[in-house]
């Protein structure tokens, strides 16, 4: 039903509306897991730090 890629991207004159709808949604759907992953990394980093700090405390009190 599409004869050429150009026609597909033009969306019958509605390119701005169709592509900004789908584009922004794709962006949000992409950003969301990335944000969760960065939060995960930061909490893991903090936990590692805390374990390390406990080790330092033990060494210090010896």
């Amino acid at each position, binding site marked *: *039903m*599409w004869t050429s890629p150009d026609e*597909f991207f033009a*969306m*019958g*004159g*509605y390119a701005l*509306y*169709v592509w*900004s*709808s*789908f584009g*922004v*949604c794709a962006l*949000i*759907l992409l950003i*969301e*897991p990335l944000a*969760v*992953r960065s*939060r*995960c990394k930061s*909490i*893991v980093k*903090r*936990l*590692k730090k*805390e*374990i390390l700090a406990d080790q330092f405390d033990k060494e210090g009190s010896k």
Partner: protein
Amino acid sequence: MSQKNTLSNKHFINWFRLSSPMTFYPLAGKLIPIFWVLAFLFGVAGLWVSFFVAPIDAVQGQGYRIIFIHVPTSWMSMFIYIVMAVWAGLGLVLNTRLSSMMAQALAPIGAWMAFMSLWTGAFWGKPMWGAWWVWDARLTSELILLFLYLGFIALQASIDNPRRADKAGAVLVLVGVVNVPIIYFSVKWWNTLHQGASISMTKAPAMAQTMLWGMLLMALALWMYSIAVALMRVRVIILERESHADWVRQLSEVQS
């Protein structure tokens, strides 16, 4: 008879054990990739149907294809709110930590779904109705739903004690869930009072079938996506809340 009894007993224990963050954490880690694959497959199928199978609309031309993202996000935003309310209610009644965490993990996704629905609605409304925003009953209810999500997130974020945050959030969501239909009808009533009949969409009956398939596939993709992201977030929340538990400290990703 006695065998059956022990069996059901065993099941009960299993369920109970699953609801503890310690056992759920690794399980969620295993489930996440499955849901990502499902989300990807349904998403590809849904996009294929919506862009290459569904024919052009007689009235709205190609612009109507926004419906394939707009309607599924609206469905999901409402569906997630209900699921969130169920989890929060379970957390309140059974006092299980995990279900409150699930409710908390779902809220941001629901809010994004509501936002996407409003955003795509605006980009659909502009070419079709000539305005970015119309005070139509559905749009207005969707906006209020977004506010409810944001209120829940803000309440959870501003209470430092997690147990109190869970309970307060649960009460808010449950009040919201009772309120949503009331809000919807009041807005609808308000709308008919102030405006003529809202603009109704026209579509050829033969096309409805493929359109429905496209929307269903997209909704399924978003559903799987929401589960995947919610599980990811629940894992983070578990780590944050249980950071002083021994089992967290013994996790392989924490032990460097």
